[in-house]
């Protein structure tokens, strides 16, 4: 892939602009933290900002915005399994016999009552 120097010069400018944007977002992250939001909101905001930063790094620095199908396919698969790895163990530990969640949580057993005959 032999790109012409002018095009690459332009992309260097893009890289510098993205770098500056990332620094701004970092400042915002620290700034928001000083506001002391409620924990669930703080987590949401922090993760949203981090995801935006990460997407910029991936799309621009890692050239993901014009990559090939095999790469996209492998990464989508990875994201799905990453989500499974984050969600399912935590859901499994949250939903336990002593304190069930979901469709069994209203059952008599969940409230410590014997089954109806």
């Amino acid at each position, binding site marked *: 892939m032999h790109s012409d120097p002018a095009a690459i010069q332009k992309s260097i400018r893009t890289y510098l602009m993205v770098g500056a944007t990332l620094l701004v977002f970092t400042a915002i992250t620290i700034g928001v*933290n000083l506001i002391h939001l409620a924990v669930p909101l703080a987590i949401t905001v922090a993760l949203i900002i981090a995801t935006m930063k990460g997407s910029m*790094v991936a799309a621009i620095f890692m050239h993901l915005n014009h990559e090939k199908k095999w790469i996209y396919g492998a990464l989508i698969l990875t994201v799905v399994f990453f989500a499974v790895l984050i969600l399912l163990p935590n859901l499994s530990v949250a939903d336990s016999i002593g304190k069930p969640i979901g469709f069994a949580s209203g059952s008599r057993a969940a409230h410590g009552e014997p089954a109806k005959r």
Partner: protein
Amino acid sequence: MEIPYTVEPRPDSGLANGKLGVWLFLASEVMLFGALFSTYILLRVGAIEWPHGELSVALGGINTVILIASSVTMVIAWAQLKMHNFSRGRLFLIITMVLATIFLVNKYFEYAEHFSKGEGPWHSTFFAIYFTLTGLHGLHIIGGIVVMAYLAGPGAGLWKRNPDQFTNRVEYTGLYWHFVDLVWIFLFPVLYLL
């Protein structure tokens, strides 16, 4: 006997071997750090109390800035090589290494401070996961520095024999490096701020 598509991309996939290889490796790294993030969530949700403000936001913030800067210099290094400016490309590669080393030095001071207060991994689950996550990340930084040192030093001979292959190697190292930056972008708020 030559292995095809080491430099020229294969027409139907549009990829050179190394590029697909590096991205697959990064996919496995996503799962590695993902397991540790899952661990963090599981342990924190199950904890009666979770420490807050134990880590130096200042040092963490400075390190974030340094790593982002090093990502910029890394991708510019590759861009320079694509424009056939070997000496500029090499210079930016070395600047990236320097920034990475400063990151590690900061980390050293951070760790030393905690150890001096008796806050090692054994101290609490928080410090256990903190040291594991940042320690593994730090090992990845060291790995990156080693590869960059090879490319800037003994490996640079490849530029004369096959400049395209050398440029590709820098690109792949860059992909790895940006991933290391990406992990830190999530590590910093999760560990230091939340």
